[in-house]
């Protein structure tokens, strides 16, 4: 019997990162900006997407991938506004992985301009899995409280933008927008921050403007 020690140095998320890099490259090469939306359940990812999609689809082609543990409900909501949507039901898994996106992509129109991926509602696990996105957005709704960035740092340190949702409820809640901004920027100085409401439409156009310029930058990089 031989005893042997092996230095392996294997990245345990390496397989997912590789698949994500391939997806990012393929989408980028076709001028498609992929956006990964992460938040806790009920922060308003689908409602925000509805408002963004309603306005954006007038001038751009978009598609949506919805991740949930169960049901087609979110995909149905997106289809109801005339945007093609695919539902991934993970059957219990708390996050999407790049290979799940890879399975859907062959069926998605190659001529779209934007692909939005709504992750499973969870402020922890999705942060560890790249999906091939160019922009990662973390959403935080005002009822969740203004103490979240430091409690769930990874979602904030790995994101490109923070979307504060349900701003229409601010008059009724002890939610300090400036405190959140400061705390989130402390974790990630590059974070772009938007204050939005899916009810009043506040901030939706600014967010769309941000996605548009990110897509232009992506196209310039791949030109």
């Amino acid at each position: 019997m031989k005893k042997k020690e092996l230095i392996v140095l294997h990245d345990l998320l390496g397989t997912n990162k590789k698949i994500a890099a391939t997806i990012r490259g393929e989408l980028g090469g076709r001028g498609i900006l992929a956006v990964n939306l992460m938040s806790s359940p009920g922060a308003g990812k689908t409602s925000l997407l509805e408002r963004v999609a309603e306005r954006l689809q007038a001038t751009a082609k978009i598609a949506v991938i919805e991740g949930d543990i169960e049901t087609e409900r979110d995909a149905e909501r997106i289809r109801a506004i005339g945007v093609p949507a695919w539902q991934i039901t993970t059957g219990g898994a708390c996050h999407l992985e790049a290979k799940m996106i890879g399975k859907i992509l062959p069926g998605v129109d190659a001529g779209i301009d934007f692909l939005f991926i709504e992750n499973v509602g969870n402020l922890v696990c999705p942060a560890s899995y790249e999906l091939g996105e160019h922009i990662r957005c973390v959403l935080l709704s005002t009822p969740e409280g203004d103490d979240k960035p430091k409690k769930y740092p990874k979602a904030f340190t790995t994101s490109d933008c923070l979307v504060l949702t349900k701003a229409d409820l601010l008059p009724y809640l002890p939610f300090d927008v400036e405190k959140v901004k400061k705390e989130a920027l402390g974790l990630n100085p590059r974070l772009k921050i938007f204050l939005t409401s899916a009810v009043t439409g506040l901030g939706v156009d600014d967010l769309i403007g941000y996605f548009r310029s990110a897509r232009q930058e992506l196209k310039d990089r791949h030109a």
Partner: protein
Amino acid sequence: MHELSIIAGLFDTLQEEARTHKAREITFVKLIVGKLSGVVPDLLESAFEAYKKGTIAERARLEIEEAPMKTRCRACGAEVRKEDFDIICAACGSKDLEILQGTELVLERIELESDEPESPGSP
């Protein structure tokens, strides 16, 4: 709780290593888990213990080394170990920090037992 998916991936790698090196058993597994890796060492350990039954690593001992977050300031060059996740240089106040360590999730090394000596150049 994505620790179980990570452990499932780890066991794929362990099986592969065991095949490559004609191991009859894996006896030791060492992981490095960064403080900002997004996984909880205790949960990884529970997942490992639950998953190992009936596998080539059934009797393996797991060691987890937690790696602190270390940053280097691109402005003044200061390298520090950070106890919080705030991206600001304690020396000069710059927010342009490079993360050197703390995000990793790595299978560092394993120990195995095999019946035959390794022939050089074998796959």
